[in-house]
């Protein structure tokens, strides 16, 4: 009897692991930056390049940094959601315009609406590397102390907003 049960148990265990593997997304690389301070930068603003923005300006506020580009296809999916979220004024969204041309980026915002308090231009993608960006769009939730508390890889969805991001923002506001 044992000679049948043991292989069966091993097979079932293997099958369970492989089945779990089917639902994992290998493209999602967990970020080591979560619970670490958001890397500092000073970049020119997209609309007013003479003015600059730095995450240090946001001390004491819970905010979102959304990495986007006009050439990014999935950004189009999340954009209406961000516009809607911005209209609710629950959390300020700042944009990191990643490896984009200024004219293209402005045109894109004119067409789809501008959910950002402001966007900054990371033309060469250097700040992107500092933030561990490897696939646009990516979104960071940053707390009052300037610590990254969550990173969304890929587009923000209705589900990720209601399940993760908004509850987290509400919690961080109380901290």
């Amino acid at each position, binding site marked *: 009897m044992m000679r049948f049960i043991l292989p069966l148990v091993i097979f079932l265990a293997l099958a369970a692991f492989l089945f779990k593997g089917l639902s994992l997304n290998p493209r999602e690389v967990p970020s*080591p*930056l979560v619970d670490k301070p958001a890397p500092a930068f000073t970049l020119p603003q997209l609309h007013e390049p003479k003015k600059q923005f730095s995450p240090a300006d946001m001390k004491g506020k819970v905010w979102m940094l959304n990495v986007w580009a006009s050439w990014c296809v999935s950004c189009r999916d999340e954009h209406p959601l961000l516009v809607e979220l911005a209209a609710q004024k629950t959390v300020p969204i700042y944009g990191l315009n990643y*490896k984009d041309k200024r004219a293209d980026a402005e045109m894109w915002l004119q067409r789809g609406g501008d959910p950002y308090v402001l966007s900054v231009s990371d033309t060469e993608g*250097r700040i992107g*590397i500092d*933030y*561990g960006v*490897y696939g646009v769009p990516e979104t960071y939730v940053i707390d009052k102390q300037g610590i990254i508390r969550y990173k969304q890889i890929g587009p923000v969805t209705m589900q990720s907003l209601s399940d993760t991001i908004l509850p987290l923002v509400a919690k961080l506001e109380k901290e």
Partner: protein
Amino acid sequence: MMRYLAILMLALLPVFAHAGEAQDMAADPVLEKRMIVLAEKLRCLVCQNESLASSHAELAEDLRREVREQMNLGKSDQEIIDYLVSRYGDFVLYDPPMKSYTVLLWFGPFALLLIGVGMLLYQVRKRRQIVPETQLSEEAQKRAAALLNDQE
């Protein structure tokens, strides 16, 4: 004759058409070489089964530029690796570090091998007990020989 020569030259074509590393500017060949050696140990995050050295993804180009610049600033290979790990996690390393959660990765195959050897030994020993070596009497041996010869 010309035809054979042409065929021979065509056959040799693949020898010269090797795929090189992704090309970038190579201002300082020594530094470039050091960068490539390091980048071969790092994984491109976009096309995940390619090294940073051979990937043509735009992010890989940017990361190579970053590595090159940090080398120019006099940083050591280890410092650059530490920087990239702090941004992208252990995932960028092709050689996974030994950590509590990678123990299974490092020692799992050896554990499986040991289990296999153990099971083999156990089975061999058990079989020996079930089928002991039989000692035939002289009479039985003669009979067996007779039977075997009979068949021929």
